[in-house]
């Protein structure tokens, strides 16, 4: 049980709900229980929507899965598309993709990182950062930013557009394309497409550097606020390649503790089921993952930009690595746990993504013709990728008739569930406790959630175990009987 997760009693407490949480993907709400002195007794981030992908994908042919499951999300469908396809590579026995296939997929994914992180930083988060957490709510949006800071808004929009163009050239469409297929890809780049993507890239890199400097300036201008807002320490998880560099597309998973020491230096993501567990709580449709050997109280962790920039040893591109070192310097040798540090890390990743794209576009393999490999058919596959929001796990079993029989998804936002709840409680304690609640103060809560760029629609997969309650009421509204399914799936009735 975590502090402020459950009030000792709800009697005499009043409830404040932020419903819906705005400027995030999907639908969620925050509830706060406060007493007469406005002391916070309970704070929760609830995920209120419900999806059923893990169930309705069952029975479908495996080759359909990468295209179908990407419909989980309209912001980072490429991540689901590729994670599912990596799992299906295992199913079709494709142990090593062709150079063209792997590089086209990487290009697609880097485009995804650039566009999704840009959307979040410029469209969703910059209104808070540039206009103020408690600024006029009618102006606190991307239009308000465009009015006051037109150049920054324009750069954000064009950075996002570029990421989408990369996706269009590699997947066929800006949103929900079909580029990756089990064992490879269905197209390479043409020389004309490559040249189009090369155009303006130096300008975009310059803008991304400007974004990094902008966040750095915000931290330097108000260090006490930026460093402490929603502060809490936690474990961190991210993907690293063999030499320890961050790899968005493929590698081992590494878990570090709050002090930056490795808990698990690296593990093959195919063994995730032995390393991770998921806890179900009755008040949310989103599960709570944790490191099995540490248990739910100590084993929870955060993922995403801030976590992966600190679980890796270095970034493989010079400008981004330099920016990473500058960011880490504020920790004075200790890991950076500032909630708002997520924004800094996220914009560094935009820069990293653009640098990766720039070097990839010079690679002749992108224009190759060898697109697909197959091997010995397998019955089970796991695919993991670093989605814009963090580690994304897809796991499938397929029968001999090619139908999916099992699907388990642990998406990035689910991995951040406990971290987001802890951030909400931290901000509630720091900024709301014993104060008169205003819209601006409530927006502080939303700012803590937004820092994680949660995709709540992706993250709701508690199907089969979700707690449900059915009440039979008489005409006066009196409960005659009640059927309740608890979080373990057991049914309870009471008259």
């Amino acid at each position, binding site marked *: 049980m975590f502090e402020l997760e459950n009030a000792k009693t709800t009697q005499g407490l009043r409830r404040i709900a932020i419903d819906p949480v705005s400027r995030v993907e999907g639908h969620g709400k925050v509830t706060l229980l406060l007493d007469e002195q406005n002391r916070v007794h309970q704070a929760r981030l609830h995920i209120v929507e419900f999806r059923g992908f893990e169930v309705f994908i069952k029975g479908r042919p495996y080759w*359909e899965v990468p*295209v179908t499951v990407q419909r989980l999300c309209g912001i980072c469908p490429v991540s689901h598309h590729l994670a599912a396809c990596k799992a299906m590579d295992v199913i079709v026995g494709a142990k090593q993709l062709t150079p063209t296939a792997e590089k086209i997929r990487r290009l697609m994914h880097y485009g995804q990182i650039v566009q999704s992180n840009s959307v979040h930083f410029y469209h969703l988060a910059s209104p808070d950062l540039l206009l103020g957490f408690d600024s006029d709510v009618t102006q606190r949006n991307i239009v308000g930013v465009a009015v006051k800071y037109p150049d920054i808004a324009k750069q954000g929009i064009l950075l996002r557009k570029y990421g989408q163009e990369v996706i269009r050239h590699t997947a*066929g469409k800006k949103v929900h394309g079909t580029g990756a297929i089990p064992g490879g890809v269905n197209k390479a780049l043409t020389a004309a497409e490559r040249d189009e993507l090369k155009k303006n890239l130096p300008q975009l890199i310059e803008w991304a550097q400007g974004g990094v400097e902008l966040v750095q300036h915000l931290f330097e201008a108000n260090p006490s606020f930026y460093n402490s807002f929603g502060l809490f320490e936690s474990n961190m998880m991210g993907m690293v390649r063999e030499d320890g560099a961050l790899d968005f597309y493929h590698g081992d998973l590494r878990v570090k503790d709050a002090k930056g020491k490795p808990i698990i230096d690296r593990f093959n993501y195919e063994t995730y089921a032995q390393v991770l567990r998921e806890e179900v709580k009755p008040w949310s449709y989103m599960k709570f993952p944790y490191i099995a050997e540490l248990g739910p109280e100590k084993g929870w962790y955060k993922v995403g930009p801030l976590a992966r920039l600190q679980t890796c040893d270095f970034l493989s591109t010079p400008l981004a690595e330099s920016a990473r070192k500058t960011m880490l310097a504020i920790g004075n040798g200790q890991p950076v746990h500032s909630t708002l540090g997520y924004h800094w890390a996220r914009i560094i990743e935009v820069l990293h993504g653009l640098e990766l794209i720039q070097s990839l576009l010079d690679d002749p393999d992108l224009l190759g013709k060898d697109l697909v490999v197959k091997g010995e058919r397998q019955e089970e596959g796991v695919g993991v990728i670093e989605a814009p929001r963090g580690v994304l796990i897809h796991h499938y079993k397929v029968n001999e008739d090619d139908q999916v029989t099992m699907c388990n998804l642990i998406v990035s936002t689910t991995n951040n569930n406990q971290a987001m709840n802890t951030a909400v409680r931290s901000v509630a304690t720091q900024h709301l406790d014993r104060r008169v609640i205003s819209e601006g103060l409530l927006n502080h809560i939303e700012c803590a959630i937004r820092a994680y760029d949660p995709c709540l629609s992706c993250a709701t997969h508690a199907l089969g175990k979700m707690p449900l309650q059915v009440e039979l009421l008489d005409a006066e509204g009196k409960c005659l009987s009640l059927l309740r399914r608890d979080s373990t799936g057991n049914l309870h009735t009471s008259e």
Partner: protein
Amino acid sequence: MNSENTFIIDGTPIPFEPDQTVLQAALKADVFIPHLCYYPGLRPNGNCKLCTVIINGRHASACTAFARPGIEVENNTPELNDKRRLLLQMLFVEGNHFCPGCEKSGNCQLQALAYELEMMTPHFNHFFPSRKLDTSHPDVFLDMNRCINCCLCVQASCEVDKKNIFAISGRGMAARIVVNTPSGKLGDSNFALSDKAASVCPVGAILPKRGSFSVPIGQRIYDDLPISSQTEFLATRKA
């Protein structure tokens, strides 16, 4: 142009050859008449009614009505297209047509016609029928969620493949395509990927296994040109 071997569609003279239907002559003359259940080389059966036109004031299926000298055919009119759109909407709600995840998307005649006839909504309540996949065959799978009962597979299997693997079972609303084996499974038949019946399905009900999404977006049949501009392709497909 000799009036003895021409007829009129929407004011345009259309030449025809003996024994040609209105639809065949129209397609050859680059005039598009919406259709789903007609396939060149297979006997026209007038199932889908999408090709309904008005011939000399009377409704008729263009795929089964023979071209005759001097007849006047109304085809591309708002009234007929409204009715065709209605038929499409009924087909969409009667099955489970989820284009976003369907591998036939971009190559699907039903989808292409929905775009062509500007079907903006399903209009009717979805039936959401429960239909299982048949994945028992090693090379081909059946997804009857997408079947529109056009019967092209029944005809191709009977007339071209000479195997009679598909049949219609039930009547009226309950009529469905079935596999003609004791188990009802395609895997228990002598169906082959090379059979004509494996390639005539206008939707995604009969599909080869493991080849899906291999054609990139932009290179699929209906990506570049609308179906109404692809009369030559529609007229020359070989049964």
